[in-house]
């Protein structure tokens, strides 16, 4: 979409439509609006006790995100997702805010710092700080959360199986750069008595999870990407999708909740079975997607793209490969392909933007380029390079994830592709993320595309599997609610959707035109 059209609407007004009528018109602010038109506070502090409506819209820079609770309104009083059940004052909702598509944007983190002087439990030392050993009140100690929306993820090294037995990793690991100080910290670092590696990752959406957890197309006792045994639900023995976390370390919503309560919430005991049931039930009934766009208008009006809005997500089929012209990853229909111009400036601008969104979908779905040196895509039978499209990797119907086992190395954390600051006498930009040097042992084959020595900001799945070929492989995230939860990629390295598109353009030498980039950004902003 031409930027001129976008800027025309800079001073936009959100028009949220629910059901059949226009219910409200509210300037973008720090409030949400329920389906009944009632304002609702944007930030959900733990233990707030409010009722979460069945449907609520939250304004964001591109319009408004819609949250839909298929179980109807819920009283959050006493609800374990919303209550500070741990010892540090946090709740699940702290990092999974409805206004941020059940994730947490860096902008929201900064707002919380500003509003609370850094006292919000969000900034708990355990992982809301670059390292627990840093001064708590100094914003610099929380720079990764404030600048990139990153939470510290600390993992044992070497990796351990679920039963606690050690895995002999195929590679050695050295800390090359440690701007947070945590990986060389005597108490928290790799050389400490309980060797730990710290990486920094974005909180993932706790919404639309029926897609994320579906173990259907592609599920197998042995992972089709590498032949390794697939994870199973420890309670039922059923195979799982391994699609939930950046490194696929937790197999189910239940184990994830238990783990998250122990780490992020610093729960000293254990979640009870009823608490777990309520958390999982809530996570399974929440849907989030952009519902109103400042330039495209109402995204869910009749005749519009079938994929858009949170209600569409409630009905989509799970575990479905959408990289085909029968299901589509994001069904957009034909309605926005070609729209009339009436001479009404506002209507014509809206229609022009909608056409841009439709073109952006086609760039996503049909525009081929050479996918090269991407572990767990080029290595799974397509060859290197493979002439394919975005939807080859981002193929899951309605989310753009992989259907199962979704970790790949698209270059977001591994050098030479990961975003790094320039290093020169003229640059003052400092690196924010740690850098590790991983060396694949002589007894194993080198990494298929990166060789024996790999520099990475986050080894990703390899920190769990210990496999050389998993270095820097990250489980892909949903493409929904993007406008509400910048920055992007697991390490928050793309501040905007344009930076996300630019990353791929560089990474794969796609040579998008300016119009293709604009269209793609516009498309993504409506999801």
């Amino acid at each position: 979409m031409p930027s001129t059209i976008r800027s025309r609407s800079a001073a936009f007004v959100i028009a949220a439509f629910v059901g059949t009528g226009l219910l409200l018109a509210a300037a973008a602010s720090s409030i949400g609006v329920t389906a009944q038109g009632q304002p609702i506070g944007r930030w959900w502090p733990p233990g707030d006790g409010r009722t979460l409506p069945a449907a609520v819209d939250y304004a964001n820079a591109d319009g408004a995100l819609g949250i839909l609770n298929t179980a109807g309104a819920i009283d959050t009083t006493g609800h374990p997702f919303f209550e500070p059940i741990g010892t540090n004052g946090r709740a699940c909702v702290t990092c999974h805010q409805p206004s941020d598509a059940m994730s947490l944007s860096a902008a929201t983190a900064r707002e919380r710092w500003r509003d609370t002087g850094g006292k919000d439990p969000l900034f708990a030392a355990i992982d809301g700080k670059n390292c627990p050993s840093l001064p708590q009140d100094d914003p610099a100690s929380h720079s990764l959360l404030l600048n990139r929306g990153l939470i510290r993820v600390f993992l044992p090294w070497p990796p351990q199986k679920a039963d606690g037995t050690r895995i002999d990793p195929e590679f050695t690991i050295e800390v090359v750069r440690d701007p947070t100080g945590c990986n060389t910290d005597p108490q928290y670092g790799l050389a400490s008595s309980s060797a730990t590696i710290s990486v920094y990752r974005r909180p993932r959406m706790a919404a639309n999870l029926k897609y994320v957890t579906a173990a259907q197309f592609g599920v197998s006792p042995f992972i089709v990407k590498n032949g390794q045994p697939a994870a199973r639900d420890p309670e039922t023995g059923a195979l799982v999708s391994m699609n939930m976390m950046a490194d696929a370390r937790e197999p189910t919503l239940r184990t994830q909740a238990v783990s998250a309560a122990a780490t992020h919430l610093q729960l000293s005991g254990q979640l009870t079975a009823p608490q777990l049931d309520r958390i999982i039930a809530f996570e399974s009934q929440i849907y989030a997607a952009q519902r109103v766009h400042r330039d495209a208008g109402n995204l869910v009006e009749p005749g519009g793209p079938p994929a858009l809005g949170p209600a569409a997500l409630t009905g989509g089929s799970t575990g479905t490969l959408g990289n085909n012209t029968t299901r589509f990853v994001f069904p957009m229909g034909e309605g926005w392909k070609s729209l009339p111009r009436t001479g009404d400036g506002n209507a014509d601008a809206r229609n022009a933007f909608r056409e841009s969104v439709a073109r952006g979908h086609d760039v996503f779905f049909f525009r081929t380029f050479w996918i090269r040196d991407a572990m767990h895509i080029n290595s799974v039978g397509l060859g290197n390079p493979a002439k394919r499209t975005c939807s080859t990797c981002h193929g899951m119907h309605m989310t753009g994830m992989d259907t199962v086992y979704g970790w790949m190395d698209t270059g977001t954390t591994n050098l030479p592709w990961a975003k790094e600051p320039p290093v020169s006498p003229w640059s003052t930009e400092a690196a924010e993320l740690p850098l590790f040097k991983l060396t694949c042992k002589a007894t194993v084959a080198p990494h298929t595309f990166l060789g024996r020595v790999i520099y990475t900001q986050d080894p990703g799945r390899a920190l769990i599997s210990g496999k050389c070929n998993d270095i820097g492989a990250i489980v892909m995230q949903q493409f929904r609610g993007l406008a509400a939860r910048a920055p992007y990629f697991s390490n928050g390295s793309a501040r905007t959707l344009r930076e996300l598109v630019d990353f791929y353009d560089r990474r794969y030498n796609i040579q998008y035109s300016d119009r293709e980039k604009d269209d793609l950004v516009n498309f993504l902003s409506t999801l």
Partner: protein
Amino acid sequence: MTAMRSRLIALAALVAVSAPQLGGQAPKRVNFVSCPIVQDTATVPCWLSAYEGQEYYLGIQTDISADFDPPYLGHQVLVEGVVSDEPRICGGVVLKPVVVSPLPELDQSCSVIRPAVPQFTVPFAPRPPGPSGGRLAFDPPPSSSVDLKPPYGARSFELFYDFDMLVMGRHSGMLTEIFNYAQKVPGARLRVAAGRGSTKLSNGKVLTERPGIAKARAEEIVELFQGAGVSKSAMQLIWRDDPESADGVDDWRSRRVTVRVEP
């Protein structure tokens, strides 16, 4: 996963495809190590490789339901094929059957992507380079799956490997078949026998896999099945580190692990 690979084994189909007899003569085989070459077309790319001035056609990009896994630029590839009398494709002499095995070490000199030109087309491509028409390129895959009907007696399964490599994604189908079969056999015991392969190249040299690969393969298979829930005590592993002899005929079969499931 982007698509499900349910084929039995990557190379099993080749076993059933007898090498073509040209005028009653033994088929001409070529075994060589060279860089792969990508020849783009208006649809999907062709994969070629050159040996002694001749370019050979290896296959095309389809999807992961195919038995042909295209090799990797950035790596040399071991090609073991039979020269067919089919018309050239993308300018290359067609090798059929053909087994391609990317070598593990990087070789950045292997980097040739040729642009599409009108004279090279692949009208037989079962799917375009982007989204499919709603089905995988090969649906069902060319290789059939194991019949799991009773009685569940002793049965052997073979996994074939890339040169000097361990289990890869394409083995998941075979591993699953073995696992599922073992689940059917009461008190199943798995006998895992691994070998170290060698290939006689067309220039007379013999390419031998690294020492220790057989042991590594056997141990990995045991570890994988153990990870999937098979008791370690139910598995016996043996390996032979002496490379199998190579004669230039289907030497890829020497890069093998045999798993025998016994009641």
